[in-house]
């Protein structure tokens, strides 16, 4: 989406245009959902957080600044919604690893056939990513997966560009280590299927 179209959409959103909402929803729905699934590692939670993110856009549509950039705005809200969820539910990282599902199959427990069909490398990357702490995961998701510029990702994460670059380097190093030792990040579900 070019900047001109984006500004026009923001203008229409501010006016309460449901057609503009649909255009934004169709553009960002999959990206936001993917981000939230990978961050929360649960599809049901991700769907709830996705809904909350869109409801916040609607609630704040009239107060959007005319020069709002939608991707950073939406990802900031999605990120805040996720961290609010973690605080309210006291989600523990240690327990959450038991809930990892293969991405992007619909069934949280992939069948051996799905495992065979899905790319081995893709599975390894998803597993390694899921094994990282959420703070590292989110920065990799913003910059590498969603393609936000580091300066935008810094704004979304509420930090400075320099601090974000350092976080990114650390997260990248952690991911590389995970990829070198894939057995460490394989969830119990996968082990059960493969043994």
């Amino acid at each position, binding site marked *: 989406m070019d900047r001109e179209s984006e500004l026009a959409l923001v203008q229409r959103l501010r006016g*309460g245009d*449901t057609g503009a*909402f*649909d255009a934004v*929803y169709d553009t960002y*729905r*999959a*990206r936001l*959902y*993917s981000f939230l*699934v990978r961050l929360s590692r649960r*599809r049901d939670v*991700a*769907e709830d957080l*996705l*809904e909350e993110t*869109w*409801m916040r*856009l*609607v*609630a704040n*549509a*009239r107060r959007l600044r005319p020069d709002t950039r939608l991707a950073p705005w939406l990802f900031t809200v999605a990120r805040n919604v996720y961290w609010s969820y973690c605080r309210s539910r006291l989600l523990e990282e240690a327990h959450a690893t038991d809930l990892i599902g293969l*991405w*992007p199959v*619909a069934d949280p427990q992939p069948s051996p056939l799905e495992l065979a069909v899905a790319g081995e*490398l*893709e599975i390894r*990357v*998803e597993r390694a*990513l899921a094994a990282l702490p959420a703070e590292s995961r989110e920065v*990799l*998701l913003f*910059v*590498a*997966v969603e*393609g936000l*510029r*580091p300066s935008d990702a810094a704004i979304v994460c509420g930090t400075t560009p320099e601090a974000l*670059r350092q976080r*990114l*380097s650390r997260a*990248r190093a952690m*991911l*590389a280590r995970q*990829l070198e030792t894939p057995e460490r990040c394989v969830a119990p579900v996968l082990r059960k299927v493969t043994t």
Partner: protein
Amino acid sequence: MTTEDIRKDPVMRMLAALPAGEPDRRRADRIRARCHAAMGRLGWTGTLAGLFSGSFCGRTLEPALVAGVSAVYLAEVVRRALLLYGF
């Protein structure tokens, strides 16, 4: 890491190649419908809010109305107080 490093880095490129997923179709449709309904409601309340925050209503009529009601209330309080003390 600079933007150029990110673009060239093999680990980052693996991440960039990960596919995006879609939420459940029915859920996605339900979210859309709920947002449309909320936009409709906000449109109505927004129109009302706009009416009352307009230049005439917001800056002239509303303070005058509040001042008038307050003056009537105050006059009634004073009248009852005087009656109570036998004036």
